[in-house]
C-alpha cells in the first residue's frame, strides 16, 4: 500500500489504511488477539463515547482518557464502504492463541494481480480483556513489498510503535512513535522517515485533553525538514460526544475536516463528512450509512458524495460455512467510471 503523507492527517494515520476485509473477521481467533483487522489498524482501546452506565463511577473522576488523536474521526470513517474491484480471496488461519496467518489472492482489473502473505503475533503481556502486547504484524507481497509493525506497551501508560514499509526493495516509510495516556489526556510523538545522511525527517506531536466528559480538545503539530527547506503545520481538533452521536472538527493551516457520526438504532448508523483542502482549493461533502442486520448476518454500507460518486458494499456471512461474501460497486457519475468487485473471506 502506498504511503500518502498528507498535511491533514498524521503520518500514523496515513500509514494505516483500512483493510479490505471485514474488520470483525480478523478478531475471531483466540482470546489473545485484539479486535483489529489483519491489516494495520492500531488496536483501539477505550471506546470513544463512554457508556451511560459509567456515570456513577465518574463521581470521583469525572474526566476519562479521550483516546488517541487519530481515532477522533475514525468512528465516522468506519461507516463508509470501501472501494472494491476485481476478485479477492482471503483465507485467515489461526494457528494458536497468539499467532494468526492470512493469505490473500487478488485478481485486479485495474492494478496488478498478486498474492500476499500476512502474519500476526500477539504477545503474552495482557493489559485488558481483549488486548495483549507486544503485537507484531507483518505482510509480504509477491513482488517483495513488505509492511510491518511492532506495537508494544512499555508501561501502563506508555505505548510505542515502529512501522516499516517497503516497495519492493526500496524503503518508503519508517517511523517510530511514542504515546502517553494520562488520566484525562493523551499525548503522542511520532518521528517519521528520519534520514541522518540526507538530513530530512518528519516530527509529529499530538495532544488531546478531555475538558468535560463530553468535550475533548487538542492539537497537532507537524514539522518537516528537508535539505534546503523546513516547515510546520498546526491543527486544532475538537470533539463533542453526545449520547448517540459524535461530532468532530479539525481546523488547521491545511484546511478543515468536520465529521458527524450518529447511531440511530442498533441497526442504522450514519456519518456525514466535510473536508476542505486549502492546497488543492476544493471541498468534498459525503454522506454514508451502514445497516447492520445481525439476524440476517448482513452488513450494508452506502455512500453518496459531492463529487457525484455513489457506492455501496454488501457483506454477508454464509453461515454454516466460515465464509463471508462481499460485493461492492462504485460509480462516479461525473467521470463515468464504474468499478465493481467481490471478495470471499474464509475463516
Amino acid at each position, binding site marked *: 500500500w502506498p504511503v500518502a503523507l498528507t498535511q491533514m492527517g498524521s503520518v500514523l494515520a496515513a500509514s494505516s489504511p483500512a483493510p479490505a476485509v471485514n474488520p470483525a473477521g480478523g478478531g475471531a481467533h483466540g482470546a489473545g488477539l485484539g479486535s483489529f483487522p489483519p491489516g494495520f489498524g492500531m488496536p483501539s482501546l477505550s471506546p470513544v463515547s463512554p457508556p451511560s452506565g459509567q456515570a456513577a463511577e465518574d463521581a470521583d473522576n469525572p474526566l476519562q482518557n479521550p483516546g488517541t488523536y487519530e481515532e477522533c474521526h475514525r468512528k465516522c470513517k468506519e461507516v463508509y464502504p470501501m472501494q472494491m474491484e*476485481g*476478485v479477492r480471496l482471503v483465507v485467515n488461519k489461526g494457528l494458536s492463541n497468539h499467532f494468526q496467518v492470512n493469505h490473500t489472492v487478488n*485478481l485486479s*482489473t485495474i492494478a496488478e494481480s498478486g498474492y500476499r502473505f500476512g502474519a500476526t503475533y500477539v504477545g503474552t503481556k495482557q493489559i485488558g480483556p481483549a488486548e495483549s502486547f507486544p503485537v507484531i504484524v507483518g505482510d509480504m507481497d509477491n513482488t517483495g513489498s513488505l509492511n510491518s509493525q511492532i506495537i508494544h506497551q512499555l508501561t501502563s501508560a506508555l505505548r510505542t510503535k515502529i512501522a516499516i514499509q517497503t516497495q519492493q526493495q526500496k524503503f518508503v516509510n519508517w517511523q517510530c512513535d511514542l504515546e502517553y495516556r494520562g488520566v484525562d489526556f493523551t499525548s503522542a510523538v511520532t518521528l517519521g522517515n528520519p534520514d541522518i545522511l540526507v538530513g530530512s525527517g518528519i516530527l509529529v506531536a499530538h495532544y488531546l485533553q478531555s475538558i468535560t466528559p463530553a468535550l475533548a480538545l487538542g492539537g497537532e503539530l507537524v514539522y518537516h525538514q528537508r535539505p534546503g527547506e523546513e516547515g510546520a503545520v498546526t491543527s486544532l481538533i475538537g470533539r463533542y460526544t453526545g449520547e448517540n452521536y459524535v461530532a468532530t472538527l479539525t481546523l488547521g493551516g491545511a484546511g478543515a475536516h468536520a465529521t458527524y457520526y450518529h447511531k440511530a438504532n442498533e441497526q442504522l448508523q450514519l456519518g456525514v463528512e466535510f473536508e476542505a483542502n486549502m492546497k488543492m482549493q476544493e471541498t468534498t461533502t459525503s454522506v454514508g450509512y451502514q445497516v447492520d442486520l445481525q439476524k440476517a448476518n448482513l452488513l450494508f454500507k452506502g455512500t453518496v458524495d459531492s463529487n457525484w460518486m455513489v457506492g455501496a458494499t454488501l457483506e454477508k456471512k454464509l453461515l454454516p460455512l466460515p465464509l463471508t461474501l462481499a*460485493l461492492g*460497486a462504485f460509480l462516479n457519475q461525473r467521470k463515468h467510471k*464504474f468499478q*465493481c*468487485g*467481490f471478495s470471499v473471506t474464509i475463516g
Partner: protein
Amino acid sequence: MGSVLALSSGAANGTWPFSPDTPPSRWDTHPAHWDRPPRWERRDGRLPNPGSFHSLHRSCKDVFPQQIEGVKMTVNKTLSSFFKASHTFHLSAVSPSYYRFHTEHLQDDQYSKDKDAPALIGEMDSSGSLNAHSLIHLTEGVRARAVFQSQQSQFVTWQFETEYRGSDFTAAVTVANPDVLRESVILVAHFLQSVSSGLVLGGELVYHRGRAEEGGILTLAGQYSRPNWVATLNAGKGGAHASYYHRANKQIQVGVEFEASTRTQETTASFGYRMELPEANMVFRGMVNSRCIIGGVLEKRLTPLPATLIMGAFVNHRGDKLQVGLGVNVG
C-alpha cells in the same frame, strides 16, 4: 439471432463463446432434452424431426458460461398469461451503461407444440437500438420468421426465414439483408435429415452477392446422439466446428468445442462444464479456453425472495485482463 451473421463471423469472432445478450429463443431448443422423451423414441417407429440447423450445437453451447461484466439488474414482470415485459439496467466499466426494455408476446397456437412459443419479441435500448423478432406459424409444418436489428438509427440486420419441418427432415431458406439499392443480398439454405435413430446429416449453402462480387460456401453437418452424449460436426470451406456434449450425471454436464476458421486462420478449443445443485439452488458454469481464457459464473436463487444472484469473472491470462460481473434477476 442473425444466423447468417453468426456464421460469417462466428468461428472467427474474438468474443466467442460469449453469446450476444438476448437468450436463445425457445424455438431453437435442442429437441434432445432429457426431461422430455428423447427424440429418437417415437412411438410409431418413424424417425424424428431433427430440429433446426441453428440448434445443432446448442446443447454444448449451453454448458459454457456467458461473459458478464459490470453490474446488471433485470426485473421480469409477467403482465398476463401471454404478455411479458422486462427491464434491464446495466452499469459497466468498459462499455456505456444502458437501460433496456424487453417485451414478449406469446402465442397460443394450435400448430405449435410448445404452447408458450413467443410470437413477437421486441427490445429497445436507451440509445435507441431496436431488436425485433416475429414468428408466425403458417401451417403445421411451415414457420416464417422476420428479424430486424438496428444500432441506434441504422439498420444492421433485416432477415426473413421460412422453415418447413417434415416428419424426418427440416428445410429452411433465409434471405438476409436484401438491399435493392446496393444490389446485395445473402441467401442461406439449410437442410437436415434424420438418417437413423441417432444420426442426423445435413448441409448449409450460403450465397452472398454484392455489387462487385458474389460467392457461395457449402458446409456439411452431421450429428450423432446417444442418451448421454451428443457429437456434432460442421465442416466446409469456411472452416470446421466440432462439439461434444456429455451428461455425466444429473448434476454435471461437460462440453468440449473446437472451432477452426479458414478466413482468420485461427483455431480455438474450449472445455466447459456445468454443475447443478438443485438442493442448494445453485448452478455453476466454468470454462477453459485455448486462448488462455478462464472463466466461471455462479448463479444462485435466493429462495424466499424471487431473485437470482449471478456472479462471474473471466481472466484472459495472455492479455492479463480481468472482467468481473454481478447481476441480480428479480421475478
